[in-house]
């Protein structure tokens, strides 16, 4: 299958910017009616004008429809981004999250008027606690990295309460960038532990890295190579013996649902990505949700409020009575709209469904791994079987033909398949991190392997085609160096630069005459 994306072009650009469209006096039809009163705001505080575009509703709709046509979602095609779990997003979740009883409730409403929302959150918490094997779950974090920060703050609070000064957090060299940053944001020094020849955490090195200064080890399991850290019990022992806590990065939970639970493996803090494992849509970068679960010992530090149930009054309520809680890391109670979608998903999947999802995800990833092993130009540094994702290296292609992982990824776009993650994890050269997820058919996986086969062949016959890919998308490769050297980050900045260019042209034209 080939792909030709819609391409709207005007003079030297694709679809014009909203500031370049419309006309004076145009706007959508919504209007407010007569004012009831004068306000008491002095003239000096009022703004003279505001430079917003003026478009009619049909013009707005057409513009953003055009933009959507020059974009690519899971609904468009295969999206094997490693550790992102781009599984199908059920549309019923959208419908339910869009109900008035979900969208038109205010977080400060009297609790008796929002019992449905509280019960939903309570039930979701119970489900996530069961899936991960933890005691309580905080639903507040708005994203995975946000949950990581919360996890790190809980680690700090824990040691502060014990009067212990622990300044280090250990992170594997294959870890996601946010792990390092979140630990640093919470005031810790990051100690990196290497991976061994099997692609797992080097346990001997870990033993050498822990000390009385160790606050925590952050671990993804399966790790970012898609491999299960089979030494996890030993790892947990080492960290706990040193007095540290074990933090679970839940990005790869899709690889073990129903098979094992992080809480049982010894993790004290477990983080989830609802927009990964639990199928809420990625939205082009967000919103997501990154709940954090903890063992009993750490419950008291969780942010306020938590949702509780009073058997006596037979109602749900928000509990703010947590004297040693760390406070808040987000306003209100979390991304409720996202929670509704995750809750709906878990209901539909049930225990069997979640485990079946993991089964299918793992089978699909292994299938791709096996098939790709037979395609020249790609190799696997670590032997399988993998879990729900696998990391291939395009190094042979690079050494033999000078075709990089980036070239491969860009070429895939022309086949209507989104590129996998590339150049991550950094410990694999020319890495292509492939996570198919369980919602892909065998036919789709075969199409993917087939595309890579063709790309491998073209690396020999027409490498220039690969280096100039993609050609079927709305636009070709962009000058990212220019974007960084001369940043134009808004219409205002663009307009100022355009004016200067015109001025300069005018000046040089004058000079010429």
């Amino acid at each position, binding site marked *: 299958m080939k792909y030709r994306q819609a391409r709207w072009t005007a003079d030297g650009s694709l679809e014009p910017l909203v500031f370049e469209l419309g006309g004076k006096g145009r706007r959508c039809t919504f209007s*407010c009616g007569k004012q009831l009163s004068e306000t008491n705001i002095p003239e000096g505080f009022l703004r003279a004008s505001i430079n917003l575009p003026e478009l009619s509703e049909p013009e707005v709709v057409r513009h953003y429809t055009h933009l*959507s046509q020059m974009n690519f979602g899971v609904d468009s095609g295969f999206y094997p981004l490693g550790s992102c779990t781009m599984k199908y997003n059920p549309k019923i979740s959208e419908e339910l999250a869009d109900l008035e009883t979900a969208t038109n409730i205010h977080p400060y409403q009297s609790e008796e008027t929002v019992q449905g929302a509280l019960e939903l959150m309570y039930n979701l918490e119970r489900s996530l606690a069961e899936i991960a094997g933890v005691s309580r779950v905080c639903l507040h974090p708005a994203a995975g990295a946000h949950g990581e920060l919360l996890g790190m703050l809980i680690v700090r609070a824990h040691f502060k309460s014990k009067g212990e000064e622990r300044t280090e957090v250990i992170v594997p060299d294959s870890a996601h960038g946010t792990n*390092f940053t979140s630990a640093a944001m919470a005031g810790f020094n990051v100690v990196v532990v290497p991976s061994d020849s099997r692609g797992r955490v080097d346990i001997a090195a870990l033993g050498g890295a822990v000390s009385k200064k160790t606050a925590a080890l952050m671990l993804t399991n399966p790790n970012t190579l898609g491999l299960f850290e089979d030494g996890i019990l030993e790892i947990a022992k080492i960290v706990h013996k040193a007095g540290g806590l074990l933090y679970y990065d839940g990005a790869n939970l899709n690889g073990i649902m129903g098979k094992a639970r992080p809480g049982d493996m010894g993790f004290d803090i477990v983080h989830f990505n609802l927009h990964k494992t639990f199928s809420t849509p*990625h939205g*082009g970068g967000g919103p997501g949700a990154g709940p954090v679960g903890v063992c009993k010992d750490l419950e008291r530090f969780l942010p306020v409020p938590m949702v509780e149930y009073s058997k006596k009054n037979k109602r749900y309520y928000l509990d703010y009575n947590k004297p040693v809680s760390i406070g808040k890391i987000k*306003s209100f109670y979390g991304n409720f709209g996202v929670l509704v979608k995750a809750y709906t998903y878990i209901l539909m999947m049930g225990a069997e469904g*979640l485990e079946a999802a993991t089964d299918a995800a793992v089978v699909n990833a292994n299938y791709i791994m096996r098939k790709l092993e037979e395609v020249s130009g790609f190799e696997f540094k670590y032997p399988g079987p993998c879990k729900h994702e696998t990391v291939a290296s395009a190094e042979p292609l690079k050494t033999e033909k000078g075709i990089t992982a980036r070239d491969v990824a860009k070429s895939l776009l022309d086949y209507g398949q989104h590129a996998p993650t590339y150049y991550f994890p950094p410990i694999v050269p020319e890495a292509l991190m492939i996570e198919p997820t369980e919602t892909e058919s065998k036919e789709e996986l075969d199409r993917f392997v087939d595309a890579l086969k063709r790309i491998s062949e073209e690396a020999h016959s027409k490498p220039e085609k690969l280096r100039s890919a993609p050609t079927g998308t709305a636009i*070709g490769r962009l000058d990212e160096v220019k974007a960084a050297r001369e940043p134009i*980050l808004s219409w205002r900045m663009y307009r100022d630069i355009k004016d200067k260019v015109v001025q300069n042209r005018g000046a040089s034209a004058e000079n010429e005459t």
Partner: protein
Amino acid sequence: MLREIGVTNVEELFADIPPKVRLKHGLKLPPPMSELDAKRHVKSLLSKNKPFTEMPMFLGGGVWPHYIPAHVRSLVQRSEFLTSYTPYQAEVSQGMLQALFEYQSLVAELVGLDVANSSMYDWATAVGEAALMCARVTGRKKFLVPKLMSPERLSVLKNYTSGPALEIVEIGYDGVTGQLRMDELGGKLGEDIAGVYIENPSYLGFLETQVQEIAEKTRGAGALFVVGVNPISLGLLKPPGDYGADIAVGEGQPLGNPVNFGGPTLGIFACRNEQKLVRQLPGRLVGMTTTLDGNTRGYTMTLQTREQHIRRERATSNICSNEALCAVAAAIYLTSMGPSGLREVAETCASNAAYAMKKLQKVKGLKVPIFDSPHFNEFTLKCVKPELGIETFNDRLLELGVHGGTPVQGEFPELGETAVLCTTELHTKEDIDKLVEAAAKAVEGKK
């Protein structure tokens, strides 16, 4: 497929999980539900909520109900936007990238500053990130905030600044006007102050009238001036960029996003276009560029070396996933409303508040508002009748079919039995009249 992988059953693929932690009997969750059953279950659950559209409600305080034109929702739910990932592959994601560039541009116009990022989680975390940015830029470790700032935002700010151990110092307010005490500000400003933060309009609804002076004093001390806003107010009020703000933060939810029980929200973050600021900006940025041949304009994520995936521990923030789709909704909303539409909404919000205040002032036993300052669309209401608590007052209102404002007597005990009420363009004259009538009855204790 199993044959091709070389196993006889799926369980072999999980053989490397230590038997000790291997779940023997699966998860203890209910069995799967069909889509229809799940729909019935969730609908029935949510029906236990009473949407604020069913009764006059006067809550605000960080998320506010506004009218969202229908086409905003339908555009944002187009699956090419909804089910896409972060636009790292620029060639195939020009739609999302341009929509986010437009969002950045529209926010920049709204707040009067050149550079806006493509979203933070919410206003509270944006304040936290702003404080961290001030510390990075100035190399100083103290951050000044008003005592009357939102306590939730203050809690989040403290958590965000706890890592580098920044000190948060509160500045008091004038008892009559609520305005920031300039003498206290002047006294606390010094070479150790990284930034000064105010909320305008404030958490209690009044406008901070001394903003020019605060900006000058802050600049004079070499600190950065951070202003937190409700963007709807900027349809009417002078933007922070015009009165000397270096950084503007705020809550973008009222721009085209539903209240949604407090999330998803949309953190606004913008700053002046100065290299030392932009390099320290947190969050994702979309920039304009051209194709390699220079012929076609396009958009790409840029200045990524500030971010976690490259800088790791030294990144300006750990933020990865943000609130992108909410930002697109905001862009569509602002584009649809245009200058006259947004001004109209803002004027109506303020005028409804003015009308409500005027009428409530006539109710004996209430003081409305408690501060003698101009207000935007939120205002304080205090029960001055002896022995009438604000919670009881609110309970009585609810019995009369009106939802009152947010009680703040727990957060600011010195203010007494006070709540913060909010009006938007959604409130009709009848709604407000009903509030006034119910308030009068509630004070009397009549049913």
